[in-house]
């Protein structure tokens, strides 16, 4: 089967699975962005992997929108046939950033989620090994990539 193009994927998702997403847009050629509903994220992720063959995990990272009081977790995914970048996003409240771990769907998100956990304080439910990746194991300095991080009291 011919792999779906960016527009075809967005159209089909909007038509058949509008209950799972907040929005789906084509940013430009080779860039598709999907914002998932938090409670439907696992279902959508499974659908993307199994039905739409987004089997190649690229990376994941978060961004802190301090003024809006939210954080956004972004998963970068790829289909080895169509080879455009799919960004699967989910908005999280800043005071309680909790979401299911995508390692259940894409095992290789493990490192990236550990990084987001220590840098942003996002809690991934169901992650097999949520420990420090880049920071020292006894780190007590807060979450470095959050916008309100001051870095006080880290240096001895």
């Amino acid at each position, binding site marked *: 089967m011919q792999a779906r193009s960016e527009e075809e994927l967005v159209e089909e998702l909007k038509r058949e699975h509008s209950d799972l997403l907040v929005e789906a847009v084509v*940013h430009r050629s*080779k*860039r598709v962005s999907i914002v998932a509903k938090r409670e439907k994220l696992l279902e959508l992720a499974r659908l993307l992997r199994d039905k739409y063959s987004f*089997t*190649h*995990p*690229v*990376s994941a*990272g978060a*961004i*802190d929108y301090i003024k809006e009081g939210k954080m956004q977790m*972004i998963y*970068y995914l790829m289909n*080895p046939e169509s*080879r455009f*970048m799919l*960004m699967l996003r989910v908005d999280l409240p800043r005071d309680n950033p909790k979401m299911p771990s995508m390692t259940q769907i*894409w*095992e*290789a998100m*493990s*490192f*990236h989620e550990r990084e987001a956990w220590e840098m942003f304080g996002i809690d991934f439910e169901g992650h097999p*090994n949520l*420990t*420090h*990746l*880049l*920071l*020292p*194991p006894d780190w007590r300095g807060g979450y*470095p*990539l959050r916008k309100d*991080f001051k870095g006080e009291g880290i240096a001895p």
Partner: protein
Amino acid sequence: MTEPEIKPEVMRISWGPQHPMSGQTRILIDVDGEIVRRIIADIGFTHRGIEKILENRTFIQGIVPIERMVMADTANIALGYVQAVEEALGIEVPERAKWIRSLICEMGRINSHLYAFGLQVECTGYFPAVFLWTTVDREVLLDLFEKLTGARWSYSFFIPGGVRADLPEGFRDEVKRAVKYLRRRFQDYWDAMVENPLFEMRNRGVGVLSREDAIRLGATGPVLRGSGVDMDVRRDEPYAAYGDLDFKVITEREGDCLARLKVRFHEIEQSLNIMEQIADEIPGGPVRTKVSLFPRSKPGVEALSRVETARGELGVHIFTDGGMKPYRVKINSPTLRNMYVFERLAELDRVLVADLPVILYSIDPWYLDCDR
């Protein structure tokens, strides 16, 4: 990292970060006799917080810290960032500048692959002759870099809007001379090492990664292509001058250490072809559009730029908020992805302790890139 529990039937060995061959990382190995049961990569020893540093630099100042990610391959890394800035700020690049960028990127790729080749050979026990040869041959490229950019390493040559300077007089002939010299040398390497039965014995069938696993575990670059997956950003999403250049994407089917080495080797040949093409066909014109030194962004713009570095795909995702600095820069580093593959290899294939250095250096790790 907090150390996971040790199962009673295995012994845990801590390799690095002070070991000469481990690089700036620590690798925990659970061994059962000679067989490695589990690999745990304890990365983070060179974490400098480049993503945070970039939030506190203007768009142009950011070029310098991001280049420190991979010193052997600074051109490709800097290009990823500069292209993202250009897309976010809407800056056009002249045609000639794109060709010069491709030229330097390919030179950087050869430089980096040579280093990787030398290290992998060194890991198999051919210390130190081949590593010294490759180091000497890199001089040819470093001299070209020096002539063109004024620096041998970390040249900060790419800026939003083009490149800092045009090619100096006679540079195209020098590129061709260097290509001719390197081609001859690579034939020597191929005959001496890749076709050497002893070297082959240590690399063939070692650390095998199947096609499905390479895709599923998110491998990238030569590791992915060494397992037979035909993906290369240069062709899939042409940037700089790659849309106009003629080159092949190299894949090997075996997925072992030798396949990854061969991918790098053939990629060097392709890069030499590209260098020659550029020296012959580079178009004329300006090399830089005028851009303010402190460009201001529009609020709420984001740009994700992807480039194929020597180690694989680098993604730089910039978010702006209308200021003179990026709001957030997310770097998708290639080595971090390949390190995860390395961690899993002990479960996918029978790995012996003696083969571990070869496997590690066949993924061509660069820890500064891994930790950022």
